[in-house]
């Protein structure tokens, strides 16, 4: 399975829809970090935490290959967001224990906002990249306005649930 196939299958597994590019990036990163990803995508630290240009291109290719549809909708203060929907041609994961674990993780992540996913993914990334003990402090330092105590609490809960 190559990267566009993976994106198509992931959206399909997430109930046929992923809302927002931030959510797509962060849940994909957290799955990779958990060892349930494709192993094909590189993430590095952009301004908003782990980001994979390959993933963005893979989503373009998945659309071009007819696996998914993307649609921009007006959001908060009219700032648009993107909805990714799987189509009939979308590839699917084989039914095995990895797919079950992936489905469970997606279910857990669906309870959190894109901002909380961003904080959780950033903390996991920093923990693995130079901040093994101070990753949550570093998240606060880098995201002073987003990292409210409530959101940090939720992000920590999610990271613990995912076993990261």
């Amino acid at each position: 399975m190559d990267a566009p196939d993976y994106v198509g299958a992931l959206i399909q597994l997430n109930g046929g829809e992923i809302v927002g590019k931030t959510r797509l990036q962060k849940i994909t990163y957290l799955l990779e970090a958990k060892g349930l990803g494709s192993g094909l995508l590189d993430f590095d630290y952009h301004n908003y935490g782990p980001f994979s240009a390959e993933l963005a291109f893979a989503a373009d290719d998945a659309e071009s290959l007819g696996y998914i549809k993307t649609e921009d909708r007006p959001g908060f203060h009219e700032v648009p967001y993107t909805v990714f929907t799987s189509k009939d041609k979308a590839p699917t994961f084989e039914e095995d224990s990895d797919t079950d674990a992936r489905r469970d993780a997606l279910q857990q992540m669906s309870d959190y906002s894109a901002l909380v996913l961003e904080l959780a993914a950033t903390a996991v990334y920093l923990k693995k990249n130079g901040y093994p003990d101070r990753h949550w402090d570093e998240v606060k330092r880098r995201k002073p306005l987003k990292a409210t105590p409530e959101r940090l609490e939720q992000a920590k809960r999610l990271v613990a649930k995912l076993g990261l």
Partner: protein
Amino acid sequence: MPQDLGMKDQRIRDPVHGLVVFSGADPFEQLIWHLVDAPEFQRLRRIKQLGFSELVFPGATHTRFSHSVGVFHTARELVGRLRKMLGSGFCERDAEVAVCAALLHDLGHGPFSHTFEGVEKARVNKSRLDTKNHESRVEAKKHETWTVEIIQGETCVGKILSNYDKEFQSQVAGLLIEDSPSDIYAAIVHSQFDADRLDYLRRDKLMTGTEHGGFDWDWLLNNLEIQNLTIGGDGDEDPFPAAALILGSKGLKAAEGYLLGRFHLYTQVYMHKATRAAEGMLAEFLKRLAEVINKGNAANTGLSEAHPLSIYFCKGGDALPNYLALDDSTIWGALPLLARSDDNLLSELATRLNNRDLYKCLDVGARAKSAAKSDAIGTFRKLLAEAQDAGEFETGDALVDRASVSPYKFHDYESPKALDKVIIRKSDGSGGYEDVEELSPVVKAMRTEKFFRVYARTPEVMTKLKGIWEEAKK
């Protein structure tokens, strides 16, 4: 009476801003001058702002040094505007942190800037695949991380800052690593109208000689206003606040010019096919060089073991002092040596880069557009990957170049899109504001441009690539 040398102003003549003066009587400006004098900052003289763009625009030989001085100057002008707007609420200390961060923001760039970052990423990824340790996911350092290490490390810049004020040093590093502006001073370093963009657009236009990319700088600066915004989450109701520089209602046309100018510079200068071909070739060349050195075969490369590239690419060599020994001149100087390498790919790429003998481009994206077959790009990519897996191409034969350029945002992502909006004050006196897109049909009509190109090493490789394209568009 002779002038006290300790009080003498220092001056730099700059092609964009004219005379940039560092006041001898101002301790903060003297700190800035000492930082400019530090070896880590002087290293930026040896890193060109636009890398290989000079192969296409021969005048574009300006460096990260002149850009950084320009960013400092621009930040100081923005601070002047904030001082006026904030009156007694203005905070000198926060403004100085922002101006110092603006000066130092590019310290961590490696040779050929983003090309080197890409090589580091590929190198770390390869090592992860080789060790089959997917879960550790240690990533390559980006220039922002190196910048903070230089500011906080055992460097001359680090020592100058720590002698001046340790807390100040930590605030400067903190501001550079922050991801969205926490207050209006931070907007000088991270925002739609940050000092970096406001300098590089003007400088790159001037130095390339292009007529694209112009905007009304004086009018823009004079119309800047402060506004606290609420930024939405990405597709859900979880907003966060951010301080932003917005434009007064009379700045609408200047905003259009700014966005169009930036878009044109990206598409006409930064994404030029020849520049991107050279960048792709250098990336391939450095990846190969790192691989050969890392395997302990440095002697086969033509470089001595003491060469900065040999030291950096050997196992465990990627430490800060070794990184700082690398710059564009290290690479240009190594090319004639590497042209004599035993490794054929290294030798060929070194010779070709030195002689500007570039790979030729197959612009798949443009072909797909003119044939109204945008869905063929995904198929082309799949067929190319299959051909590569089947051994139809050798390493270095076909270099893929993908990019996405938007008038508004740089990363294909939603929350930066929200922060990257240009906001204009409404002209009805309500104090409200609107997105420039709602006020300008020109901006509304601008769409993200996606590039998909492949560069061919030889005419034979080009023929194969064209064959794959013919198959893909069926």
